Structure formats: C-alpha cells, structure tokens
C-alpha cells in the first residue's frame, strides 16, 4: 500500500465518538419502515444505545418479594437465563395470534361452514364423464391415465371439522392457515375406491365443484387450488377472505373419506393399490410376479382417514399444557428459519407436534416444562435418534396383526408411526431431509450448550437459506430431464407409486448416488423441496416440471475436499467390478508406490481453486453416467467468484519479478531503479514485511531518539552482512532494509521489544514513572508486537480452514471495490472474515469462498455495531466469563471506542485495528451496501439459468459523488487488477522470463495513492475521497455537508476558502472553482478529467 496519510486519519478519529450516535441512529432508522419509529422513540433508553445499568443500593438490596423469588427460581430451573426467557416471551408474543384476530377468523370460519353446506348436489355421472363441470373450473389433478372406473356425484359434506394447529393454538403468524376437513358422504364413494387413484379422482372432482360455487361468493377474496403438502395427488382448496382481511387467514379445505370407509389392512406399505395393468397399460414383466407395493400411495389415502384421530391425540396431549404449545411454536419457527418445513416431505409443524406427543408419551417431556425446555428436548431427541435406522411409533397396542417396524423401514427411508400403527407420518420425508434436520439439531444443541449470549438470536431469529448454508449449490434445470433419469434408473414402480411425480421419485436415488460418489468430500447433502404452488381454479394444475428447479446443497468436508484421488479396491478383488461400474470410464487401474495395483479415479486439478471444485466434476460425471442428465442441465454454483480473486494474482500469491532495465532510470550509487516520466508507471511491487526482534540486552540506550539511531545502525549492519555473506542486493534506510532475493522483495524491520514501553514512560512531577499510551507507542506496538501475533493466529486459522484466505480476499476486494477501502484496515477485514470461521453459528464454518463471502455480507449488514463488540476468539483463548467481562467493559466505555469494535484475545480493550476508521458514515454506508448486495448476489446464485454478470455487486454506484476525478490508466500501476479487468493495459516494465536481477526495483510507487494522500491533506477538511486501490480508474469526491456553511473569518478557517460578504458580515466559503482546478494541478499527468456535478451543490 502507498503511504497512508496518518495525520488525516488521526484527526478523523478524534472527533468520532460524539458524531457516532446521531449518525448511526439517523441512518439506521431510515432503512427501516416508518412504522418502527414510534416505538423507538417511546421505549428505548439512550436512543438505541445500551448503557450500563445503574441501580441504587436500596433497590439492589431490598427484601425480595415472594413473587420475585418465584420468578427467579422459575427462570433458573426452566430457562437458560433470564435474557433467554424474556426473548422467548417476546418472540412468542410476536408470532401468536391475538384474541381479536381469532374472533375474526372464527366468524369467517362460521361463514365458510354455512356456504359449504348450501352447495347444491349434482346427479351421478361416470368418473370419466366430466362434462357436468362448469366451464370456469378445471379438475385440480393430472388424470393420467384418464380412463378409470367409478361414478361420482356431489353431495354436501357429512361433516365439516376444523383440524390442525389453529384449534391447538400452535399456529404462528404470519401465514395463518386453518385446515378444515370435509367428510364426504358415504354415498359418493364406492367399494374399491382405494384402487387406481379412484378415491383421489373423486376427491379432486369434489373440490372442483366446491371451488366453482365458492368462487362466485363475494365473501372470498381469492379461491385457489394448491397441493396438500406438495403431494400431487391431493389437491386442496384455499379460501381467503375478501377485502382488508385478505392476508388475515387462509382456509384450506381437505375432503376426506367417512370414518372406517377404507379397510386399513388394504393400505399397509406392502400392499399394491395401483395396478400396473391400469397404470402402465401392461401387466408387470414376467407373468405371475407380484405387483409392486405402493407404500406412498397407501399412506396418502391413510392420511386422509386419520385427520381427526390425529387431531384428537394432539388436543389431549397439548390441551392445557401451555409450555408444550410454546415449544411447538418455537420448533415451528426453528424449522421455518431452516427452510425445512415446506413442500412434499418437509418436516412440517404437524410432524413436530406429533414428535412432541411422542416424547410426552415416552416421558421425555413433561407437561409442566417450559417452551424452551420442550425445544431443547426435541432437538436433543432429533440429534441423537436416527429415525432412518430405528423408527419410532406412537402405537401402544401389541396387536399381532399390525405390521412390524421393519416392514416400514423397507418401504420408507424415515419411520415414525402414528397411534394406529399403520400410518407412517414421515412417509414423504427423504433420508437427506431427515439427516439435514438431524444436522441442524446437532448444531443447535451445541449452540445451546455453549452458553453463548446470543444463542436465541442465532437459533431462532437467523434465517438459513440454502445458498448461505451450503458450500456449493447446484441446480437441476429443466426438471423434465428427471423423467429421462427415472427411466435410466429403472424407477417405474416408484413412478407408479408416486402417481407419476418423477421429481420425488428420482430424488431419493439421485441423492444416494451423489452421496456415494462424493464420499469423504461430503459432510451433508440436502435438497430443496419443490415449492407448493397455488393456481387459479380456472387453470390446469401445474405440471411436475413446472415446480421450478431441484436445488441440491453440498456441505463439504475441508479435509477430504481437495484430494484428487478416489482410491478403489485392488484389481483382483470382487468389489473392483462394482467400483468400475460406479465410476464408468473414469475408473482406471493404477499402480501405487506400495506396490498395490488398484482401481482408482484421478481428477484433474492443478490449483487449490480447481481442487475445491472437484465435487463439480464428480457430480456432472455421475449424473451423466447414471442418470442421463447432461451437464447442460446441471448448473453448478461454486467457484464463480474465483475470477475476482484471481484478478489479484499480482498480490497473492506473489510472483517473482524481473524488471526490464531499459524501462527505468538507474540510480547508480544505490543500485536502484527509478520510474521514468516518459514511460507508463512501472508495476506495483509491495515488499513483504518481516519483523526481526532483537534479543533484549542491557546495552540498549534508554532514550527514544537514541534507540532509533541504534536500530538504524542495525539496519545498516544487516544490509551489509546480507550483501557480504549472501550476495543479496539490500537497501538500508533508518527504519527498514529492503532485501531482494530471487525476484521477491522483503522488507526487514528491526524491532526492539522495550521500545514501546520507553515511548510510553512519563515522569510525574514527583518523579514517579508511569506508563501512558502515546500515538507513537501505540503505532509501534501495533506494528511490531500485535501484527506478528495476529498474523500467526490467522495463519493457524488458514491451516484449519483452507477457505479462510479466499473469504478474506473476497471481503477486502468487495469493500475496496465499493471505494470504501480507505476506512478499513486489512487486519480489521481479516478479523471479520475470521469471525465467520470461529463463530459460524448457526452455520458451520464455510468451506468455499462464495458462501463465506455471502455470510460476510450478511454479518456486516445485520451486526449491531453500536451495541456489540465483534469478539473474534482466536485460538479459543477467551472463556465465556471473559467474554461477558469484555462485553460489560465495552458497554461502560462505549463512547470512547471506535464505531466498529473488534476484540481479540490479545486485544480486549481498545480494538486496535479499527482505531483509525471507519468513520460512522463510512460504516453505515458499508452496512447499507452489504444489505443491498446480499439479495442481489443470492438471487444471481440461486438463478438456475445461470448467475448472469457475477461482478454486478462489485461495481460501485457512482451517482452519489459530487465530483468524479477520472484517472489515466497509464499511471495506474495496478490497472490490471480492476474488477472489470481491462482488455489492454500498458506495459509495466516487467520481463516474462525470470533471470538474474541485481538492481533494486521500484518499490511501493503508486501514483493514485500519492495523489490521494495529497488530496486528503489539502482538502480533507472539505471533502471525502473514495478510491479503489485495486486498479480503480475514478476517484469519487463527496463534499462534507458542513463545508459549505459559511464560516466566520478566522486564521484556521481560511484553508481553501475565500471571503465573500453576506449581508453585513464577512464570511468564508470554499473556493470551489479553484479547488476543482487544484484537483487537476496536483494530479498532473495522472488526472484525465475532473467531472464536477455542480447541480448537486450550491455555495
């Protein structure tokens, strides 16, 4: 980096604490909705700033009342801490339905009930004859094959019952749904309706007729169809009230058969109810072989029959236990934040309610427990129980006619039986979904056990969208490819079972395939569930391929990720054939160093970035080989941002340089090269700093000035010795020695450990020596003591998490590309990036730079910098108690601290790396930018058609600046590093082939930085200057708002201003025209044009 204008920074920092509060407050509110203002003003003490609590002695030590003691005891036994208790109470208040709304919903339900009962009946027709249906409504079901036996007529339902969470009081806002079961009269149904989708056809027709009549009613704002839990055979009808209540509630109508209509033994998982002859128009291959069982189909029928019994079970269990209801509500929020509850096979609120009921029946949960304890117990149960291996059952009877759990395990990946013992509640849940739930539960348990202060925030309030939770994400698009995949994978029985839903039929086998292929690289594979769509009643139901895309998320294991070899069995083993079959043509015989000849797959990857992308190769290869999905349908989102890091190749990893001598002027005595005015600016070479601590000795002088001279003498001697003994080219100065070795330049700084202390010493009048921090001592301490410590800690972190460097580089790149780089030191951004790895909760440490960068944006945009320090617990040195202590210390001294406070174990009080910036405005700007950039980038990465221009979020908006100074690329040494890398740039005087080099190259010469330093020194009091040091071509200038206010004539005010008369007075205003010309003069040669947008200001 170029020489930073130290003076300007110190000055800026001095005035900050006073400015900070109003600035953050003012802009913070602006981003939010206006409605939040009322509360902010009314309630919060100290305008949104936490203050240390001051209680009088009398208040602290007064006799406790009984009530208070009870509450304290309750908190201690039922909750983790009083803070958690208060937070949970607040959250529940937020999601609970108010009594007023309940009344309105009840009134609406009564209306709905009456309307339904009044719908006229129809005469009986054949199921295939649907001419009686009016024109405005379509049957909400794909009738494939169309021909089916049976008759249908519409009769008003025998019974209308409200089922589900609304009655239980566990429904949560927003999106309040009320499920209503309509019992179809027995006359509609016939024997054998369970066969060949006849029941589902009738159900759909029943709904269609209902929909037609209800749609004409002005009571309803909208009447739509949807699939119940995303199941394509089971549509439901959604009713929403008219007018302003439209968003109040959605009533979902589910037709169901009369009780005891279906014989449960016909619907066991081993039974077939969809005949191949009917479904495929052919008998199963090999006459006489049994029909394939249709477990999912059977389950869907059974679900309809069991609606009421489940309701009864839940209401007896949850009935009066408030804690359980709270717990269910919390669990629902927990699931929803993790996007686990929606779609076919989602872990829905109903499932967790049943799980709570199960835990109550096994006495793991007691009805007196608090909501928090229920949450904890359920998570604990999920984390420790693998339902894919050991299923559970709510059924208590030991009836021998009931099927065994093992039968269910054969048919379904996850098993959780209801109280009848015949219905698997988790029938649609895939193994991956369950493993994801388990994974989340485990993470949450760790978080709850860690006693972290903000566990509540991370557990229940932080959304975990797929793109931010998983290292790599891939989209399969278009979905119609999966149909071919089903055929390739020979999944015909599954298709028959799923009623032709090839997406869910293929999901299980595909995930298994990829899990096997990714093996040790993979920690967890998750898939998105197709969203539950809604459609108008006059439209055809959406096709399977319309359900968007299938998104798979890969959580990678950093240890195994980068291996280029898949080691197979030895060639003569029988497993070798399986291995060959699995990997296809990629598998080859190899001879290894230990003499073994094995099957193996080797992936081509040279650099670390390519190695991180081996999963991409694996996935595309396996999908093409086994599922017939070409790579044009696989949209892999990983490594997309690598371009932006590789643009910085000149910075990292550093490459040896070989200057072309003719490009430079020579300084013969010092054997150094100099830039020439008639050539473009030479390449930017930044020396690598080495701190060399000398052994302590009593011989050092005890005077600051003398120490500097001795250090300089050491530098000279060091240079001399390196030249003499190793033949290295050295250049010594008073503070450092530059050493040239093999095309790399190192800057060795000699340091003396006691020097900062000597700079700190102050002698009081009584002769007492005390230590006081001075700017010089702090600066020296930072450079010679704290920086090496930090570097080694970060190096350790990088060894542990190889993605760290990528995340830190992307973060810096982005901050600088937004022209805000000046306010943030390298180290402060490194530390923020490190925080993502050390405190990843509720996520896991990122294994790819992209996801790390997304979380960086999320952290920056949501962190409450005003009230919280960012504690980066390097090497895990800080205990929980110490962190609490640090936090309280922070609150007590908040106003003396910089706006952005980052603490490390080595720096628990002062936040050294953010001392000199950013200013409140710059930080606020960064927060706003991050909040804007995050959704844009996430949307790009989640777009299955490809991310589009990934650099969008790295381009700074320029329309906010008052003046733009365009620079000539000729004198920008790092021009090629720009975000939009230029197609052509200037020769920078480097030879491509390495050779021996004996002259010291031009070091740290960066005209834009020199220019900025001059600008800030001369006009820093009037304007702010913004620039991207990595090849930016433009400097943005923003006038400070105060600088245009007329100042009284004083010697200190005259800088860059001129006198004008205003009324009777003489005042000073900025001499803008001259200043604009100064911009051009100071940067002569570098500045191409100064664009003043004079419409933006008035003098």
């Amino acid at each position, binding site marked *: 980096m170029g*020489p930073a204008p130290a003076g300007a920074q110190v000055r800026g920092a001095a005035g900050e604490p006073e400015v900070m509060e109003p600035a953050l407050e003012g802009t913070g509110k602006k981003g939010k909705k206006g409605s939040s203002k009322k509360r*902010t003003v009314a309630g919060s*003490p100290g305008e*949104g700033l*936490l*203050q240390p609590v001051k*209680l009088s002695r009398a*208040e*602290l030590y007064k006799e*406790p009342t009984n009530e208070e003691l009870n509450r304290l005891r309750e908190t201690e036994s039922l909750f983790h801490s*009083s*803070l958690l208790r*208060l937070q949970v109470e607040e*959250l529940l*208040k937020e999601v609970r339905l108010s009594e007023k709304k309940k009344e309105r919903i009840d009134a609406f339900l009564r209306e709905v009930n009456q309307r339904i009962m009044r719908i006229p009946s129809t005469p009986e027709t054949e199921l295939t004859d649907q001419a009686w249906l009016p024109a405005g409504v379509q049957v909400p079901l794909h009738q494939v094959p169309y021909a089916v036996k049976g008759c249908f007529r519409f009769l008003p339902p025998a019974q209308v019952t409200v089922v589900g969470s609304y009655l239980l009081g566990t429904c949560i806002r927003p999106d309040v749904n009320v499920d209503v079961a309509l019992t179809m009269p027995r006359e509609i149904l016939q024997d054998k309706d369970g066969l060949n989708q006849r029941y589902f056809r009738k159900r759909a027709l029943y709904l269609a007729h209902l929909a037609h009549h209800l749609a004409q009613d002005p009571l309803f704002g909208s009447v739509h169809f949807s699939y119940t839990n995303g199941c394509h055979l089971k549509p439901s009808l959604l009713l929403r009230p008219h007018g302003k209540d439209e968003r109040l509630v959605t009533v979902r109508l589910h037709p169901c058969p009369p009780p005891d209509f279906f014989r449960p033994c016909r619907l066991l998982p081993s039974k077939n109810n969809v005949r191949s002859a009917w479904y495929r128009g052919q008998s199963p291959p090999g006459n006489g072989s049994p029909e394939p069982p249709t477990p999912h189909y059977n389950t869907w029928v059974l679900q309809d029959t069991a609606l009421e019994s489940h309701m009864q079970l839940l209401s007896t269990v949850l009935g009066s236990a408030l804690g359980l209801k709270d717990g269910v509500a919390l669990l629902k929020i927990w699931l*929803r934040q993790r996007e686990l509850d929606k779609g076919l096979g989602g872990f829905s609120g109903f499932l967790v309610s049943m799980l709570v009921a199960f835990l109550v029946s096994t006495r793991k949960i007691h009805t007196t427990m608090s909501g928090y304890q229920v949450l904890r117990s359920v998570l604990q149960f999920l984390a420790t129980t693998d339902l894919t291996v050991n299923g559970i059952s709510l059924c208590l009877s030991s009836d021998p006619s009931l099927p065994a759990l093992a039968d269910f395990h054969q048919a379904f990946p996850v098993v959780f039986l209801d109280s009848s013992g015949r219905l698997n509640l988790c029938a649609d849940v895939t193994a991956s979904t369950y493993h994801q739930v388990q994974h989340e539960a485990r993470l949450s348990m760790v978080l709850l056990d860690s006693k972290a202060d903000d566990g509540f925030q991370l557990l*229940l309030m932080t*959304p975990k969208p797929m793109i931010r939770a998983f290292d790599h994400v891939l989209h399969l698009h278009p979905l119609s490819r999966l149909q071919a995949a089903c055929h390739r994978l020979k999944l015909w029985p599954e298709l028959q079972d799923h009623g032709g839903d090839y997406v869910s039929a293929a999901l299980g086998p595909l995930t298994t395939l990829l899990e096997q292929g990714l093996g040790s690289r993979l920690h967890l594979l998750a898939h998105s569930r197709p969203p539950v769509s809604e459609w108008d009643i006059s439209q055809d139901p959406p096709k399977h391929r319309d359900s968007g895309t299938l998104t798979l998320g890969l959580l990678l294991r950093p240890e195994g990720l980068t291996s280029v070899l898949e080691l197979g069995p030895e060639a003569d083993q029988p497993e070798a054939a399986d291995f060959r079959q699995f990997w296809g043509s990629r598998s080859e015989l190899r001879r290894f160093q230990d003499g073994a000849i094995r099957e193996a797959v080797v992936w081509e990857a040279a650099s670390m970035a390519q190695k991180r992308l081996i999963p991409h190769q694996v996935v595309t290869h396996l999908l093409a080989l086994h599922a017939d999905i070409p790579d044009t349908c696989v949209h892999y989102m990983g490594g997309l941002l690598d371009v932006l890091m590789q643009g910085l190749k000149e910075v990292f990893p550093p490459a040896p340089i070989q200057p072309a001598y003719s490009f430079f002027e020579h300084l013969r005595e*010092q054997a150094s090269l100099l830039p020439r005015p008639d050539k473009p*600016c030479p390449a930017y070479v930044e020396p690598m700093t080495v701190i060399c601590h000398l052994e302590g000795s009593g011989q050092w002088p005890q005077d600051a000035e*003398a120490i*500097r*001279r001795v250090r*300089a003498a050491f530098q*000279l001697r060091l240079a001399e010795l390196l030249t003499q003994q190793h033949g290295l080219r050295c*250049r010594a*100065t*008073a503070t450092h020695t530059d050493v040239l070795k093999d095309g790399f330049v190192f800057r060795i700084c000699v340091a003396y450990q006691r020097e900062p202390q000597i700079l700190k010493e102050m002698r009081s009048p009584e002769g007492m020596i*005390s*230590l006081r921090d001075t700017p010089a001592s702090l600066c020296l301490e930072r450079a010679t003591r704290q920086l090496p410590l930090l570097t080694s800690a970060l190096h350790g972190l990088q060894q542990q998490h190889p993605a760290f460097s990528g995340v830190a580089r992307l973060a810096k790149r982005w901050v600088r590309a937004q022209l805000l780089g000046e306010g943030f030191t390298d180290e402060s951004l490194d530390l923020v990036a490190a925080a993502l790895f050390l405190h990843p909760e509720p996520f896991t440490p990122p294994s790819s730079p992209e996801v790390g960068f997304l979380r960086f944006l999320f952290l920056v945009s949501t962190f*409450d910098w005003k009230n919280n320090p960012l504690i980066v617990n390097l090497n895990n040195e800080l205990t929980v108690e110490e962190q609490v202590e640090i936090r309280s210390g922070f609150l007590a001294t908040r106003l003396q601290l910089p706006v952005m406070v980052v603490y490390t174990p080595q720096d628990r009080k002062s936040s050294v790396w953010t001392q000199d910036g950013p200013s409140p*405005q710059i930080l606020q*700007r960064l927060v706003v*930018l991050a909040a804007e*950039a995050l959704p844009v980038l996430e949307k790009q990465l989640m777009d299955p058609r490809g991310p589009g221009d990934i650099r*969008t979020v790295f*381009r700074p908006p320029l329309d*906010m600046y008052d003046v733009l100074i365009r620079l000539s690329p000729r004198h920008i040494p790092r021009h090629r590093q720009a975000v*939009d890398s230029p197609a052509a740039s200037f020769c920078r005087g480097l030879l491509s082939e390495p050779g021996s080099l004996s002259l010291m190259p*031009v070091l740290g010469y960066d005209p834009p930085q020199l220019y900025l330093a*001059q600008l800030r*020194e*001369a006009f820093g009091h009037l304007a702010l200057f913004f620039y991207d040091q990595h090849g930016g071509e433009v400097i943005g200038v923003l*006038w400070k*708002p105060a600088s245009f206010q007329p100042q009284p*004539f004083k*010697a200190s005010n*005259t*800088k*860059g201003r*001129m006198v*004008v008369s*205003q009324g009777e007075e*003489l005042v000073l205003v900025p001499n803008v*025209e*001259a200043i604009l010309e*100064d911009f051009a*003069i100071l940067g002569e*040669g570098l500045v191409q044009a100064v664009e003043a947008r004079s419409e933006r*200001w008035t003098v």
Partner: protein
Amino acid sequence: AAGSLHLPEFGACWALFLGVPQAALPSPLHRCPHSAIPVKFSGKQQASHYLYVREHRVREGTKSSWPQKRTLFVLNVPPYCTEECLSRLLSPCGPVRSVELQEKPDLAESPKEPQSKFFQPKPIPGFQVAYVVFQKPGGVSAALALKGPLLVSTESHPVKSGVHKWISDYRDSVLDPEALRAEVDTFMEAYDKKVAEEEAKAQEEEGVPDEEGWVKVTRRGRRPVLPRTEAASLRVLERERRKRARKELLNFYAWQHRETKMEHLAQLRKKFEEDKQRIELMRAQRKFRPY
C-alpha cells in the same frame, strides 16, 4: 450493459446542505483586515486562490520571535506553493530575508535545528500559513498593496506537480546509506558522551548529603531500592491485598451467609435489569420479527 448496485443517497445528513443565502459575487473584500492577493498555479488556470496577508502584529506582552514591522503574515498558501516560490513571488516588494511555512499560525519561530531527513518523513503539504520576513519594513506595505494575480509556476521557474513531482520524490526517498551511517555515528557519539557525563555526575553525588542534609538513594547504591514506577507500586499494593484476603474467613458467620445470598440476589437483579434493557432495545429494532 454493465450493471452495478443501485443505491439511495449517502444518508440523510449528507444530502442536506444547509441553505446558504446567495452571496454576492465571490470577490475579495477591502474592509477585511487582511488584504487578498489572488494566486494561481500558472497562467492556464481560470480561477484563483487568495492569499490573505497582513502585517504580523501581536498584542502587548505576547512574545513572538518574528520581528515586528518587517514580518508579513500570509494565510491560505496553496499546497503547491513552496517556500522558494513564495520568496520569489514576494521579492518584487523588497528583499526577503526568510520565509517559513507552517501548518497553523505559531508565534515562535520553529527551532532551527535541522530535521534529520532519515528519521523524519517528508510531510505532505496542505494549505499552510507563512511568515515572510523582509529585510526592510517597506516590503510589508508593498506586499499589502500587491494586486496579483501571482503565478506559482512560470516558464522561467517551473514548479513540479503530479507525476513529475512524485517521481522526483521517489528519487529523493532513495537515500545514501553512508550518509545515514555518518549521522547515526555522530548522534550516538554525542549521546554516549551525554550519558557518560550524567553517570559521572551521579557517581559524584552518590551518598553526599545536600545542603539540608538529605541523602539521595538511587538504584546504583549498595542497597538498591525499588524503581519509582507506577507498576511497581501497584504490585506492592496488590500483594498486600492478597495477604489480607488470605487471612479472612469466608462464610463463617451467619451474617456472612446472609450477605452472600443477598449479593447473589443483587447480581440476579442487576442482570435482569440489563436484560430488560436489551429486550427493550431489540423490540425497538424489531428484532423479534422472525421472518
């Protein structure tokens, strides 16, 4: 085609420029205690900065090292204007003895001891003030009547700026190590001599009572004492405190029990208050909206 982020303004406070009544044409004024001299970088520029100059005067009794009557005080010297330039620009008014540029007005002349170019980084100039000392008082009055505009950089005396200046600065920053060595050696010789003298003086005074009979005890004596530092005295106090704490009995008497309990309760209460405040703040920030 190249998209970028679209964003609101920098923040409310930045967009708001307080309304300034339209001023008269920006022209230097005569009633001002300073007279204004327009100054430009070269003839090519349109607008000019103004040097505000007046005679250097101080109130009675204030000390100032600048000679009265002969010193011209100049405000708002642009960054590209060096001491030599100023001297050249003002020399038509009369022979100039010295020019000194400073960041802010300072009554005393800066110490004349030459700053080491090895140990002091070259400052980056901004707008500065200058004290120009003429050889005769007539120079000051001539300068006050100067009409300008003055040109900093002319054909005959070009002033470097921009790329040329940075290149020459870079050249200057490559220093001769031999000169550095010589400077270090002279400094250290002088320093060693000074230290030796002080030591000799201390040795001489060792154990010798002063006129009132007091003997100064130093670290070098036969029985060295603790150094008088804050850290050392804190250490002693801490040791004392720990010694006392060891002797005390804990939870021995009933009142001690009671007090511990009460203390615990007070801690809980305090925590509760803190938590309530935190919740209040979170509620204000709408932190309880889960999605």
